[in-house]
């Protein structure tokens, strides 16, 4: 069984804070990491490697520096790693990113594709699902458990207030939630080995897209502007008796939480 894990290098957004007075992003000293739920996907793949004799390929798209998360993946036990990097691909939105990744998947070959549920910088949760759609394979999002026997796949997942047990067949894609497992640390043996392994590069001379179809130019969506909300405006302040106060708060529960 051949497993592809798609991973993304992201800024550690838990370290990014907003200055509550100026309303600006404090980005100083924020480090780049492997997106946490992609690490859960990799862990799931490595467990399947052990139990099902699978091979694990990790693929990322990004600038050359994104190689760091591929080295980390190899040090955790992945078998091979690909870096998709081309200045033509810069600024790609989720549709174009997933199209490029799907093309890479076709090239590399796969039975199972695993990704994290969502990345902590964009929070879109779209790329893994869209890869599957480009490839025409089934996909299950938000998985918390995967079991495979032959080409039968059983996935447990949490969706809204429900737990579902879903069956499907290989080839398929699964997006993994952080509740699935606890990712292992890099091991010493692989840590030394990871620098001798080759990181394979995929650029547009290999993937061969029409350059008007990729990157920012090819992306359906464009960012018009970004902003921090700045210091918050004054809200409503209410002073009244207990009953009125309770009523005010109950209205908020209805509005924000749909509790009626």
């Amino acid at each position, binding site marked *: 069984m051949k497993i592809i894990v798609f991973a993304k290098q992201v800024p550690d*957004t*838990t370290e*990014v*804070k907003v200055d509550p*007075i100026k309303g600006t*992003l404090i980005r100083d000293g924020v480090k780049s990491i492997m997106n946490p739920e992609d690490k859960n996907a990799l862990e799931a793949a490595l467990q399947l490697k052990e139990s099902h004799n699978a091979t694990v390929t990790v693929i990322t798209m990004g600038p050359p520096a994104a190689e760091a998360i591929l080295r980390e993946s190899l040090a955790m036990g992945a078998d091979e790693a690909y870096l998709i990097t081309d200045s033509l691909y810069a600024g790609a939105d*989720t*549709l174009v990113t997933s199209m490029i990744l799907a093309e890479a998947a076709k090239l590399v070959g796969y039975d199972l594709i695993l990704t994290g549920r969502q990345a902590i*910088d*964009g*929070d879109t*949760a*779209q790329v893994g*699902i*869209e890869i599957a*759609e*480009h490839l025409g*394979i*089934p*996909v*299950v*999002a*938000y998985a918390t458990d995967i079991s495979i026997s032959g080409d039968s796949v*059983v996935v447990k997942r*949490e969706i*809204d*207030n*429900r*737990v*579902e047990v*879903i*069956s*499907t*067949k290989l080839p*398929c894609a699964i997006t993994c939630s952080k509740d699935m497992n606890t990712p292992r640390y890099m091991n010493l043996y692989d840590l030394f080995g990871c620098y001798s392994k080759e990181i394979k590069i995929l650029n547009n001379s290999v993937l061969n897209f029409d350059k008007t179809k990729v990157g920012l130019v090819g992306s*359906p*969506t464009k*960012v*018009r*502007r*970004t*902003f*921090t*909300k700045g210091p918050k405006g004054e*809200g*409503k*302040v*209410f*002073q009244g008796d*207990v009953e009125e106060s*309770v009523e*005010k*708060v109950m209205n908020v*529960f209805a*509005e*924000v*939480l*749909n*509790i*009626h």
Partner: protein
Amino acid sequence: MIMVFCQQDDGNLHRVGLELLSKAVELAKDIDAKVTAVTVGSDISHLATTLTQYGADRVILVKSELLEMYNSDLYTKALSEVVEKEKPEIFLIGATQLGRELGPRLAARLKTGLTADCTHLEIDKETKLLLMTRPAFGGNLMATIVCPNHRPQMATVRPGIFEPHTSDTVKSAEIVEYTPSISFEDARIVVEEFFEKVREDLDITQAQVIVSGGRGVGSAEGFEKLRELANLLGGTLAGSRAAVDNGWIDKDRQVGQTGKVVKPKLYIAIGISGAIQHLAGIQEGTYIVAINKDADAPIMKIADLGIVGDWQPIVNGLIKKLSKKASKEDDYEMARS
């Protein structure tokens, strides 16, 4: 045309669909468009009346026995057929987890853009494009996204942002029943079983509702009251540094610069004055309710709703009201089973 996907479950409409219908009515005025509500399922004809009341000019009931329960393969096929036939300018979907799985499947199949989890929508006066604003970077940054050349312009929209309104006048709408060309074989995934999730006490960084207490709560017993309120809201308990220092709450439940950064939908700050260090722990997009004796406390300036008063009778009042609702729901469940 603006199309709104109105999710239903067991013949009941999810509130977010109605929120989006009302918003669509507003947006439609700016681009001189009609609003179409689409709902998918098996036994759904009775929903047309409600969808009309909330502003749909046209209701499309996508009906099939195969669609009785959500199946992403079948829903994607059925809805992409409808979109290709109707060619809406804008297509809105509630950003429930279901919507956030269905949205990308549809967008990729229709080869168009999708903006996830929007919190603000408006029409650009000049270009007439939909301006879709969403939080990114862990909620620290807002981004406004457009989709200039691909149709439909698609967005999933966070529940609870817009207010659902019924139309003031008696409205009629065109009701269309649509039978999609789907078959059992189109379902490559099969939901073998499902059950309702058991509520658990969440990690505060993942909680959707947080009831948080500070120095003003005054005691560990006070925090038991807050916990009761949190449980009734399906939320979790947190506190300020003062509460931790006093030993009323565990350190791993501290919100703020030296604690954790939280991003719930609703943050209820009780007896918390709102020092900058505390406020730094609450991310953008959170609705903040503050209950505090001091009308001049800094938290009152940042709260969406500040209630001036003694927290105890107010929290007791809330617990009483919410318990009543909960027991009514239990009766209802019993009656159904």
